[in-house]
């Protein structure tokens, strides 16, 4: 709690707001006042057997332990979703390298010439490239348990879904004519 108060004071947050937030997070009024006293008064050597000092250690340095479990679960879910997007972030590049390897195995095959037929292959990686870092940001930011972090995470999730769906439709609409053309031979 002390670290949290110090951090908030560094961010120029008023004492009243900090106290209100701490009370809302479940801290006792007396503990909060004691913490403020410790921060504002010069450091003193505490008795190691002092019950109050051990209480703080048990409760934690900031109200994160009082965070609802759902906040941490959501953070972990965002993290899993971010990890699931790693393959997508590199699918396009992998496809280009595999196609190039195939072209190179043909005598006289020109490097990356397949890209001239399918220049949109680069699009395949775009959703993953966008989603992976943004979902990671959401996973880390949402841990604060604030409403603004919730809003940011919702915005990122919606954006990732929209970009994925849009790119999927776009790629499909570009691939289908090529597939139909090549199957007519």
């Amino acid at each position: 709690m002390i670290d949290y108060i110090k951090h908030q004071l560094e961010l120029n947050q008023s004492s009243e707001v900090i106290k209100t937030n701490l009370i809302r997070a479940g801290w006792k009024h007396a503990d909060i006042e004691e913490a403020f006293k410790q921060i504002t008064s010069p450091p003193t050597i505490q008795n190691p057997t002092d019950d109050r000092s051990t209480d703080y250690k048990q409760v934690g340095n900031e109200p994160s332990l009082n965070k609802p479990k759902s906040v941490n679960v959501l953070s972990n879910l965002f993290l899993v979703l971010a990890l699931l997007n790693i393959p997508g972030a590199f699918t396009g590049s992998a496809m280009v390298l595999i196609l190039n390897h195939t072209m190179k195995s043909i005598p006289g095959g020109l490097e990356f010439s397949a890209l001239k037929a399918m220049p949109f292959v680069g699009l395949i990686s775009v959703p993953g490239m966008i989603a992976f870092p943004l979902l990671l940001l959401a996973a880390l930011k949402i841990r604060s348990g604030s409403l603004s972090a919730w809003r940011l995470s919702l915005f990122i999730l919606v954006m990732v879904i929209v970009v994925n769906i849009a790119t999927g439709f776009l790629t499909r609409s570009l691939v289908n004519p090529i597939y139909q053309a090549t199957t007519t031979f």
Partner: protein
Amino acid sequence: MSLTQIITFIFWIALFIFLFVSKKNFTLPDTKLSKKTVIFLVLVSIFVLGINISIFGVAYFKAYHPNYEYDKISQQTSYHVYQPSYLPPGIEQASKFYVEKKEFAGNKSSVRSAYDIPISSIAKGLKPIITVITQTQVDSSFDIKNYVLSTYKGDNPPNIQPITLPNFPNRQAYLQTGGFAKTVYVIATDNVFISIASPKETEENLQKIANSLR
């Protein structure tokens, strides 16, 4: 849809619902991300973007600025490698110059290059008009007509008629028609035997290509 896509889609929905249900729990004050976290996120983003941009950058550049490896192949051969300065409209070089390790005109290897409509046109459904130029050095006594007839194994021999190519005056030059592919044969002054074959290209265009060989 791939398995990863299905799992991701299920996650989207689950996360979306869970996010709305949990909104009431987000009452804590906002805290900034630590410097270490910000640096980590920036590095991850640079890594993901960097790899993709590098691969696609190199790939697109090489796709649109191909290296036909003419110089490399010229250094590998003891004879001059001819390349056409004229290609029919809509035709472009479709392969590198490469050494084919198969018997051709009595030699164990030859230099080949292919020409065709752009690969993007093939993807749009246009039919290929592939032309292959094969060349190797032969003896001064090499006879094109005898060679062509000796390589033919069918009942009906191909139609071979002599032609005149202004680019190769007083040199043997023939046009073969009637088979699977039309072919122009010519022996250059430095005894490089060149064959220009295509199943679809016109005889006129094959002769124009032959005349443009430098």
